């Protein structure tokens, strides 16, 4: 009973924050709404007996990704979002897509409700860190390695994309020195010929 009450409280919070994320024009308000969604979802993971995922959700999403997003918003000093003017037909496309997805959601809801197997498995140990860790480093070792390589590629890609493409101060100094030496050599050669 308590679980159901908590679920509906946090589900309402998540949906309200998600709507506020789409509704607000200011990117910073959107970012803060998104943090609200993450925290509500993390609480729902706790009610689903997945404490490890809940902690990781807070750490990675609310802690790392959103801090990065807020930094970028501050760095770029953005204005409010203006309404669509050139691509006005997108409003119709978005409304149609939303209706289709909502219909699909309700179809899935009723289909799962009518299915005979509703048995809840009350095994509470599944989401424990020990179980996740032992599965991760035995059965799913290869995917974990692949994810590690993916993260390395993302680090390199992020650094290359975000750096400036002008020569650094050190490069400028070295280039000047090389030019100076070159001129000196040409001058010397000329003198010797004379």
């Amino acid at each position, binding site marked *: 009973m308590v679980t159901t009450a908590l679920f*509906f409280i946090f589900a309402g919070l998540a949906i309200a924050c998600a709507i506020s994320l789409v509704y607000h024009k200011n990117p910073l308000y959107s970012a803060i709404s998104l943090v609200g969604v993450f925290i509500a979802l993390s609480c729902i993971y706790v009610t689903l007996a997945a404490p490890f995922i809940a902690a990781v959700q807070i750490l990675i999403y609310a802690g790392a990704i959103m801090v990065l997003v807020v930094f970028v918003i501050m760095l770029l000093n953005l204005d409010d979002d203006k309404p669509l003017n050139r691509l006005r037909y997108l409003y119709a496309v978005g409304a149609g897509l939303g209706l289709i997805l909502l219909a699909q959601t309700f179809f899935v809801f009723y289909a799962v409700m009518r299915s005979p197997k509703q048995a809840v498995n009350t095994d509470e140990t599944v989401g424990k860190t020990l179980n996740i860790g032992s599965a991760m480093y035995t059965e799913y070792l290869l995917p974990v390695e692949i*994810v590690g390589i993916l993260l390395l590629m993302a680090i390199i890609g992020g650094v290359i994309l975000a750096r400036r493409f002008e020569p650094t101060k050190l490069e400028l100094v070295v280039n000047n020195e090389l030019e100076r030496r070159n001129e000196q050599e040409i001058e010397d050669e000329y003198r010797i010929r004379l």
Partner: protein
Amino acid sequence: MEPSLATYLALSGILFTIGAVGVIFKRNALGMFMCIELMLNAVNLTFVAFSRYYADVTGQLFVFMVMSVAAAEAAVGLGIIIAFFRNRLSIDTDDASILKN
């Protein structure tokens, strides 16, 4: 008594719908990025709900993978947004039309 699997799936579907509509309605590249994160989270909720209802740890591991991919996406996506801002002084997706014509 716990909420049934269908309730979790309905919540996940509603969040996914809001995210998908947001991607289309937002003009701001950062806003689109945040809506994509919302959609990823909706899918994560589905994984965790199925993992709970079948007492299988695989779903939670998949959530872990999705989170890693989201972190990689954040690094590269924000790098692209900063590079775009440097060239155009805006992150409006309407301005990303250099390949048009």
